[in-house]
């Protein structure tokens, strides 16, 4: 949630640059709605039922049994929040996708306490949206 709140802080900047911002989580709609309200998020929180999109990005993993038990002891019943009996989760990840559909920035980390700054993401978007730089970038990658 800390990351979502930090992204909310730069959401006006992203929007001013013409970019969209979305959060994707396996949690069911009603939980996403509650989380969004509590953290005062203005961007959409999408429900990735059974982690189909997380899988497509290569982010889905299954919790080890001892951690599964631990979460259950904390009262985190993922099968209820996610309708996900296998207790799978997405690795924390932030992507910037260009209008051509290519990934322009990717930050994936197994440790959810290690995340990139939102300002770094704004900088990537700004560079994409600066006239001239897009052509240079796509030339470099073609």
């Amino acid at each position: 949630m800390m990351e979502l709140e930090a992204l909310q802080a730069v959401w006006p900047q992203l929007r001013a640059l013409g970019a969209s911002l979305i959060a994707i989580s396996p949690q069911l709609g009603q939980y996403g709605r509650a989380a969004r309200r509590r953290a005062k998020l203005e961007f959409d929180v999408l429900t990735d039922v059974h982690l189909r999109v997380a899988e497509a990005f290569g982010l889905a993993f299954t919790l080890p049994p001892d951690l599964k038990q631990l979460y259950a002891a904390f009262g985190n019943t993922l099968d209820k929040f996610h309708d996900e009996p296998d207790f799978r989760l997405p690795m924390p990840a932030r992507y910037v996708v260009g209008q051509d559909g290519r990934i322009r920035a990717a930050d994936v980390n197994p440790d959810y306490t290690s995340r990139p700054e939102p300002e770094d993401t704004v900088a990537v978007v700004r560079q994409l949206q600066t006239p001239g730089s897009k052509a240079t970038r796509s030339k470099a990658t073609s």
Partner: protein
Amino acid sequence: MSLQRELDAFKAAFESGGPPYNVSRERIEIMHRATEELRRSGLAERALKVGDLAPTFELDNQDGQLVRSVDLLAEGPLVITFFRGHW
């Protein structure tokens, strides 16, 4: 405060075992082991990276409205954050 500093402060408080989280050493060890296993699995290195084509998707938002990645990309660049849940 930067996001990473905020996360560092949370981690230090959580792993101290003290209030407000009051987590036992044993539980912290389980969490560390799980993160380490995930790191060793190499999954992060195999995930999509810069230069790859992003998969297109259609998902419901919090109000049950369908959001299509192609519609968002027609407007401009798209920032996506994947998170496990609010819990």
